[in-house]
């Protein structure tokens, strides 16, 4: 163990000389995340009110109905996006801090003793497969964009309602979240050592630069897209259940 005298060795949980309210951020983040996760789970289990006219809740997209399955289809559909977020480099930071308290905040003591293995052992070593979840959820994007197109269809004629905008905003947020992914940034060009050594490398460098700009805002997109997914579902749900009426803009 490090030679630090007792006066300085404050390694117990939450031990720190920090005087700011370091616990606010992890608490707030943990709470909001819990609320969003709870809502998404609840909504996914309803198996009703996810559709109104051309509007489709993103939690149920792409819509696959399997009649013999005892579970709501949303659960199956949602598994890859959920795992994509669960292994996301940003969300990992958020839940390691807020839920694992490892660490709760910077330069603040934590709970666990000598068993720390980080992401070197099962199950957390599976975080390394994040890129496969990127591949799969990437395939969702065409469906989500087609949902936007469907949301402009009102009984066969073109139109725009509040719901159209909500769904458009959500699809945009999810697209930005996907393209700002750290794995995507690596695959697009980050894996190269020399950007100027071939025409292909130069093209990938241009793409990598774009991905880097988005990647710097990955945390923002992670939060915004989670909010928009839940908001879009809530909007469709409220309209479909007749609680509110969609307002037609065009």
């Amino acid at each position, binding site marked *: 163990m490090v030679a630090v005298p007792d006066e300085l060795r404050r390694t117990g949980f939450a031990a720190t000389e*920090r005087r700011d309210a370091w616990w606010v951020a992890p608490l707030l983040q943990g709470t909001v995340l819990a609320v969003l996760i709870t809502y998404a789970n609840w909504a996914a289990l309803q198996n009703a009110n996810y559709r109104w006219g051309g509007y489709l809740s993103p939690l149920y997209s792409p819509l696959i109905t399997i009649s013999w399955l005892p579970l709501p289809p949303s659960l199956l559909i949602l598994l890859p996006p959920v795992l994509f977020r669960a292994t996301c480099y940003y969300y990992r930071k958020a839940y390691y801090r807020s839920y694992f308290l490892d660490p709760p905040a910077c330069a603040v003591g934590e709970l666990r003793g000598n068993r720390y293995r*980080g*992401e070197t052992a099962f199950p957390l070593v599976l975080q390394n497969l994040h*890129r496969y979840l990127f591949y799969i959820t990437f395939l969702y994007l065409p469906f989500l964009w087609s949902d936007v197109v469907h949301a402009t269809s009102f009984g066969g004629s073109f139109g725009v309602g509040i719901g159209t905008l909500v769904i458009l905003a959500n699809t945009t947020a999810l697209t930005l979240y996907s393209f700002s992914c750290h794995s995507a940034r690596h695959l697009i060009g980050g894996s190269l050592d020399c950007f100027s050594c071939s025409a292909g490398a130069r093209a990938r460098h241009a793409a990598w630069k774009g991905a880097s700009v988005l990647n710097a805002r990955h945390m923002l997109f992670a939060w915004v897209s989670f909010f928009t997914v839940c908001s879009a579902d809530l909007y469709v749900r409220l309209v479909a259940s007749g609680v509110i009426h969609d307002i037609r803009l065009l």
Partner: protein
Amino acid sequence: METVLKIFRGDGTAGAFRDYTVPLQPGMVVLDAVHWVQAHQASDLACRWNCKAGRCGSCSAEVNGKPRLMCMTRMDHFPPGEAITLAPMKAFPVLKDLVCDVSWNYGVNRRIPAFRPRPPEPDGTWRMQQDDIDRVQEFRKCIECFLCQDVCHVLRDHDRKDQFAGPRFLVRLAGLEMHPLDAASRTAHLKEEAGIGFCNITKCCTEVCPESIHITDNAIIPLKERVVDDFYDPLRRLWRRLRGTS
């Protein structure tokens, strides 16, 4: 105007925080206050410093519990009338007062596989575009203050110095791995020796970096992805086996 500094005085076996009352000057930084204490109250108060301009990374300490460079921390950053606590970095053994033994870091550096350039052009020099080196130049801004090592919970709380190189050396490895001239691969070193899997990307290193290097997003995560390429990606493994290059 005066303020009270509570400075840790002691060594690796025993010590205590002692109060020193210091006159405040406009524009004063914490390091000035420490120098004032040395000159007037405790000539043997130990602290490291060199450039006093945030460029050498010598005067790292924990000011009110936060890892910081003392030369770049203004006294008027703190509420007047409140004592300021000064402690040495806690991830390393304390030698005396504000000085700790950071020699472990130099040992880690020594084990990193050296830079190995590809052959030069016929004129004996290399061509590189600014685009190729922008990414690496960020990593080379590091001033080795070791504040990232200090705040990293893997080293600070879990004391995994035998298995984990820490953010500073992941940044250095990133500078070598992504160097446009370098021909060596360090992914095995990253996985086994440097223990990159121990990092759980909670980003405290990035928060404390006085050079604003995006340690986690630009160095560690891209390196984790490179380690995935070589060790965890099943399709790539299959592909390498099919091509017989594994």
